[in-house]
């Protein structure tokens, strides 16, 4: 019976999943013991940032099923807020990243209020429009220095409360812990009634409404949480790169980067963005450097091939078929 096989799968792997998660976590902590190589650290830190962004997108795009193509806007808003608060107003980024999260959430809620009446590809198109508007604003707005972006004052490198580190190691731990914390929050959500209600909207919005759910409010809630996370990781990104400009945060492809992570790893699953980030970022970073010069751009071909293979052999992402939902 399909039922019993499914039940057995559901029973068994829970412990195994936890064991796996523990092993992976210990392995990650041990990475700097093995190598503090600049490049390796960089790959991990980017992977952590993209775990956060993938989790962020997964809340609204995976669980609630609203396919946002504009998440780079919230990422950029968080980054710019953190940078401007610190550089122009002296607010420590340890506060600034969370402030950036709140500003990003406000932008996300505005975007949600404007677009949640739309469904399916119309919603995706509206968020793509938001991405394009965000990009234009980013390049033209003088307050944020337009296309030239905002540089961090290097004189403050290594000073306390600046969150500007000379080495990669503190970033590795800081952003790694943030990615882990975000994943645990999503895990709690996944298991809670809230996760079930968001999934119900994804599965059948009309039926969810019939069950009494205020669908619009739940989407707004999901958008707020999602945007907040994207904003926080935008702040962490700015602190890591020590420079923020519209090209790196608001270009249209950035929106796609964010979506690729859960799509590779598993849409609407807790560990999907983690797996996706550790597949996507190494491919991106290694092909970008390894295939530079005459082969620039070939990395995207590799990513494209991976996506095609996943679509064929693991529709829904690497984790979706093996593990089902984490429950």
């Amino acid at each position, binding site marked *: 019976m*399909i*039922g019993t096989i*499914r*039940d057995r799968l*559901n029973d068994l792997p829970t412990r195994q999943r936890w064991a796996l998660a523990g092993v992976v976590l210990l392995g990650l902590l041990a990475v700097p013991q093995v190598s503090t190589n600049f490049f390796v650290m960089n790959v991990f830190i980017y992977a952590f940032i993209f775990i956060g962004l993938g989790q962020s997108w997964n809340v609204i795009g995976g669980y609630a099923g609203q396919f946002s193509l504009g998440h780079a806007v919230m990422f950029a808003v968080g980054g710019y807020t953190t940078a401007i608060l610190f550089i122009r107003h002296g607010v420590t980024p340890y506060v600034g990243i969370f402030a950036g999260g709140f500003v990003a959430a406000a932008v996300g809620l505005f975007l949600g209020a404007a677009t949640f009446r739309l469904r399916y590809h119309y919603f995706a198109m509206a968020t793509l429009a938001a991405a394009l508007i965000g990009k234009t604003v980013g390049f033209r707005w003088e307050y944020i220095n337009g296309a030239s972006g905002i540089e961090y004052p290097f004189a403050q490198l290594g000073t306390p409360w600046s969150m500007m580190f000379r080495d990669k190691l503190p970033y590795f731990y800081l952003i790694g812990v943030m990615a882990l914390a975000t994943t645990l929050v999503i895990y709690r959500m996944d298991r809670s*009634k809230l996760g*079930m*209600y968001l*999934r*119900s909207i994804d*599965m*059948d919005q009309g*039926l*969810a*409404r*019939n*069950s*009494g*759910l*205020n669908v619009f409010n739940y989407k707004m809630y999901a958008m707020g949480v999602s945007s907040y996370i994207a904003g926080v990781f935008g702040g962490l990104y700015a602190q890591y790169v020590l420079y923020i400009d519209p090209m790196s945060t608001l270009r249209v492809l950035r929106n796609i980067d964010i979506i690729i992570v859960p799509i590779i790893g598993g849409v609407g699953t807790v560990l999907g963005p983690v797996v996706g980030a550790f597949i996507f970022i190494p491919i991106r970073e290694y092909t970008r450097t390894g295939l530079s010069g005459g082969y620039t751009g070939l990395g995207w071909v590799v990513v494209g091939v991976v996506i095609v293979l996943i679509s064929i052999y693991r529709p829904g992402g690497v984790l979706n078929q093996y593990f089902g*939902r984490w429950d």
Partner: protein
Amino acid sequence: MAILDIENLHAGYGQHLVLKGVDAQAEEGDITLVMGPNGAGKSTLFKTIFGLLDPSEGSVTFHGEDITGCTQEELLDRGMAYVLQRSALFEDMTIRENLEMGAYVADRDYDVDGKIEEIYDLFPILEERSNAKAGTLSGGQRQMVEFGRGLMLDPEFMLIDEPTAGLAPKIIDQVFERVQQINETGVTIFMIEQNIKTGLEYSDYAYVLDNGATRFHGPADTILDNPEIRDAYLSENVSYEGSE
């Protein structure tokens, strides 16, 4: 006493009026059947009762109170449930989760687990398969989950839109028996059905809608005595059994 009272109801989609003056009542404890040809406005009537469409004229009262303009949450709170026509389940959720979704508007201290146990007592097959995804169920089992979800909040009144739609003929009787079972627990039923003959056997009262208005109504066991209805809904070469 009528638990539901519909008066001169007009409603539709945008400019297009589908209901053009429906009058109907549901007596407490009854199974009331709503029948009529395709496009008569049966489903539109149910959607309007459940607040999914706004009436342009007329009223719906439930327990003597006007419920037009109420949200689904308010209606569920007042003891109304709505079982949709199309096979309406959250496919990727388990049976149990589907039932839990039915109790969404319940208070925090509502005994959801206890209610699920009651529903398992009513439909034991659901307990056996409680962790199966709804998408793996047969048509009859899906129907049970839908009824179960509708019962989660202990409704007094249940709107059921074509419970036998798309089901194999041999389980149609089972479905009506389940409706009757639910009715016997004290739930007033207001039901759309296309299987008129079988549906009437299980009903107390019937309304015939045509072109958005109430055309006939009467006790279920006499409605087919009307030659016009017989002509309209039963082809002559089908022998009719069940009239008295």
